[in-house]
């Protein structure tokens, strides 16, 4: 049971196009090590939401952007200490309120019942809603003329991700070949 170390960085273990592109660039740098077995024994899962670093980064970026936006929209003070406190408050409200709000919505709609493996997952819709909310916040920031830089950063990140998706699509055959090679490194036994 010897998996190859590089299999860990297979693009198909990442969700966002930008992360997949970074993984591909990393693999290109380390490709000479492709036949080296991992130290010890390991088995990797090829799921697009597998990488912890990506999940935590996206989570932190989303919460930071939303909290900073809310701080910009609600802060009347020019005192940096009060603004920092407001930001911390917004982070806490977001982190605590989002799960509770989602639980409340699911209870209200009685939508939490799991109906079987073929039941349609709404995770893509939910993901889309989260990014639409962030996008609308960016638009409000631009209209309100407060912290436009924040909106510009957010929109730039989205443009970078879209461009990454385009590059990946152009090199789709090569990406697929790399993924297939790394997938074969996973032992079945």
């Amino acid at each position, binding site marked *: 049971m010897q998996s190859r170390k590089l299999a860990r960085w297979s693009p198909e273990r990442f969700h966002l196009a930008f992360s997949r592109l970074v993984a591909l660039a990393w693999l290109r740098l380390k490709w000479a090590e492709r036949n080296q077995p991992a130290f*010890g024994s390991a*088995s990797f899962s090829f799921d697009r939401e597998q990488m912890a670093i990506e999940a935590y980064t996206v*989570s932190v970026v989303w*919460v930071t952007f939303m909290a900073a936006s809310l701080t910009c929209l609600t802060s009347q003070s020019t005192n940096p200490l009060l603004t920092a406190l407001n930001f911390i408050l917004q982070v806490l409200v977001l982190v605590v309120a*989002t799960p509770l709000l989602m639980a409340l919505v699911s209870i209200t709609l009685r939508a*939490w019942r799991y109906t079987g493996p073929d039941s349609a*997952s709404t995770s893509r819709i939910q993901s889309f809603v989260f990014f639409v909310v962030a996008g609308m916040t960016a638009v409000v920031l631009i209209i309100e003329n407060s912290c436009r830089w924040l909106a510009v950063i957010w929109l730039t990140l989205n443009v970078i991700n879209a461009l990454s998706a385009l590059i990946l699509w152009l090199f789709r055959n090569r990406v697929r070949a790399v993924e297939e090679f790394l997938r074969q490194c996973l032992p079945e036994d």
Partner: protein
Amino acid sequence: MSFEWLKRRFHVRGVFWRELQDWAVINLPFFIEPFQMAVWALIFFLVARRERMAVIQNLRMIHPGTSRIAVWFRAYRVFWNFSWTTTDTARFKLTGKTMDWDFDGIEYFHQLVAIRTGAIMLTAHMGNYDLGASLFSQKGGRTITVIRAPESDPETQQYVEQKVDLTGGFRVGYSQSDSMLGIDLVHAIQNQEIVAIQGDRLVPGISTIESSLFSHRTLLPSGPFALALATGAAIFPLFVVRMGRRRYRLVHRPPFYCKRTGPDRARDFREATSRWISVLEESVEAYSYQWFVFEPFAATEPPVAK
């Protein structure tokens, strides 16, 4: 919809939270998960007073001399890890998505897979024991019967039974005081199957053996050792430890036997138990932040003999 029904449903061990978790696993985007875990673990940590105090009491016995703040932090970490592991189990059962794995003591894993007779996999309520057993049956190509404690809430128990993954030679039995489970397990081992049992937590009414864990008197289930004695099967200690987000380690330890060496059956039991206790203490001390025993392990009642 009576008050009693609502109380049972929304109790910390009630079925509602399982349903909500399954819903979240299927529906929520992946980047919401990290802070969902932190928040829900905190809510349960604050609400489930009895479980929290039991975990704190256990941690104080495992790490004596720990400060009050440190022990509370460690107790929260137990709840936080429990949230992650139950979510990972739910994801595996509902979507079939597996995790990253690595092995500690892989030579014992190979030994267990290759053994041509039945065997006992002795584990603890640590990390993702449920997922570990299920994956083992898939990867190892062996039929495995997992014995677990039933849920205290009947509706939750019914829900868990409906959702259990019965594919790929994976079976589940529940340790209950009035069941004929022992006979079934002897047959399973005689049929060259593997039986996975948790040897660290008691179900009220089942037979026990008195022992000492972290220098405190405790009662352990005697079932695994009685089964080993009756069948001659080897006992393989195994712990499934969470190492990070969707990443686990299978910790295997050397196998041992519980064999009849003379007329004194109790002495054979004690020897096997002390082997298990030394392995259990080592693992629990190293991974106390994911030892999911939500009752005090130090015993106050006398042992139950059967």
